[in-house]
């Protein structure tokens, strides 16, 4: 317990602080609602018009649920590095982080995880209230966010969601380290965000891509940052495929943490502090 104390404290402090940013949460919710609505309508048109839709594994109602869940979890997709670390790099506050009797990787990792979860909790709750409760109530059940098919899928989703946070935080750490390496995070963020928007399934659910791409899309790391948990939720990934999804999430998390730790060790060995 005492070993985890600093990391838990860092997580709690950041989580509590960010939870207070109500305007940001509302703005995020409104944007993701709007986009969610547009996507749902586009998919409805696609399923109605394109015969190819029949060959995908997702039904229209699963795709609609996929869309709402994906919009709700939007803040867990690692679009950018942790802005706090980016700022610490520019101001030299990284030096202070090295003065703490904690493992710097774990310390930053806990903060990144807090940053992401604090953003997702209010947004996901609002999204669920809107797409899962309000839409059915006003008679738009067809367009709504449905519950998972059974308890088994729901519990697999819970595990997958935790792994999603772990994996995304490990990726954020790589972006953070790139910021330390290049003293600026913007270039790397712009570069990786375009990969993530496609390969996480945010732009288009991965099952809707051509069949010959499916194996690659399933095993690449970004699937675990959105597509895998959302497909488990909607009942598209079941049984062994669901377990394989969890294993991929865990495997990529371990890999990114390992790479991040080695990289951090090297960067900190030749850290420089410029000026005063």
């Amino acid at each position: 317990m005492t070993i985890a104390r600093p990391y838990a404290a860092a997580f709690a402090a950041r989580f509590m602080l960010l939870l207070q940013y109500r305007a940001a949460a509302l703005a995020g919710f409104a944007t993701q609602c709007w986009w969610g609505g547009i996507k749902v309508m586009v998919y409805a048109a696609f399923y109605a018009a394109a015969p190819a839709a029949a060959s995908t594994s997702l039904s229209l109602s699963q795709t609609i649920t996929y869309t709402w869940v994906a919009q709700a979890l939007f803040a867990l997709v690692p679009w950018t590095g942790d802005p706090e670390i980016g700022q610490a790099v520019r101001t030299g506050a990284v030096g202070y982080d090295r003065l703490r009797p904690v493992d710097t990787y774990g310390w930053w990792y806990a903060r990144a995880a807090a940053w992401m979860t604090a953003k997702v909790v209010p947004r996901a709750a609002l999204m669920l209230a809107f797409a899962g409760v309000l839409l059915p109530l006003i008679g738009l059940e067809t367009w709504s966010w449905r519950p998972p098919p059974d308890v088994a899928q729901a519990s697999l989703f819970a595990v997958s969601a935790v792994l999603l946070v772990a994996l995304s935080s490990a990726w954020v750490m790589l972006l953070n380290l790139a910021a330390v390496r290049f003293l600026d995070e913007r270039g790397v963020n712009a570069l990786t965000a375009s990969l993530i928007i496609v390969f996480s399934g945010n732009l288009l659910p991965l099952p809707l891509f051509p069949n010959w791409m499916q194996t690659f899309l399933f095993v690449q790391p970004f699937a675990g940052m959105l597509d895998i948990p959302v497909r488990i939720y909607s009942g598209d990934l079941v049984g062994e495929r669901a377990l394989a999804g969890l294993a991929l999430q865990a495997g990529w998390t371990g890999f990114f943490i390992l790479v991040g730790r080695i990289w951090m060790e090297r960067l900190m060995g030749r850290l420089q502090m410029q000026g005063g």
Partner: protein
Amino acid sequence: MPQILVQDLAKTYRVAEREPGLLGAARGLVRRRTRTVEALRDVSFSLERGELLGFIGPNGAGKSTTIKILSGILRPDSGRVEVGGLVPYADRIAHVSRIGVVFGQRTQLWWDLPVIDGFDLLRDIYRVDPVRYARTRDELVSLLRLSTLLDQPVRQLSLGQRMRAEIAAALLHEPDVLFLDEPTIGLDAPSKLAVREFVKRLNRERGVTVLLTTHDMHDIEALAERVIVIGHGQVLADSPFEQLRNDVLRERRLFIDFADDAPHIDLPGVEVRARGGRSLELAFDPSIVPAPRLIAAITADYAVDDVHVEQPAIEEVIARFYDLHGAAEA
């Protein structure tokens, strides 16, 4: 065994260089040039437990680099460094839990958090026993007069208030050694006095070893028993403050207003510093020419309206000391 031991410390930085102008920028796209800067060339000193050492030197001399190596942030290129038997950069986690550090130009408190929340967070980061923490915190709060500031977010504090909070933050885990890098920079006179008073008490009453860097000679005068002057990454002087003062503060100034145009004065141990119409400013070494004798010699030969003697400001003397050793920043 000294508490802090530094031997032959050297550290270089690589700095990216770019030629000015558009052409330079275009060249930089193809080939990057770097230049090596020697921050520390050969620094050696040692410090006993309970000592209070002042570190002075011009900007870019290597003071902050030394502090950053001693606190475990930076790794030296070569040389030996030990604090309390630990090598800072190698045993970083064990080392940093026993030291406190304040960088006057940066903040270690969380900008958006109230001061007290920041303190509580530090308690958990340093894994301080809660009962012990409460006692230390209350003591620091009363000594540094922080009680009215505790509920305020750090960003709302004035610089002087923030610096007091920073110092408290660096001491919540009761470190044996305190590194202060320009702790009084930008502070007003009362805040400076408060900081000095507190650091002095901490050193005298708790026996905390203190190493501080500053550009404010009054800090040194008020606090440090021993002073190291550093320039160009080398130790230029390491002596008790009194001795440094006697060495460099021996000089006196004699200001004379003559009844007629100022004459040429050529006496041993006397140097003309400034001349203007009827007035002269002479620098002299009282151990060669005592002031009364110099005044007597001049008034005997010339008609004089007014004389007075001054001791040069310590800042000026230190600046000359840097010049003398070629230490001033290029």
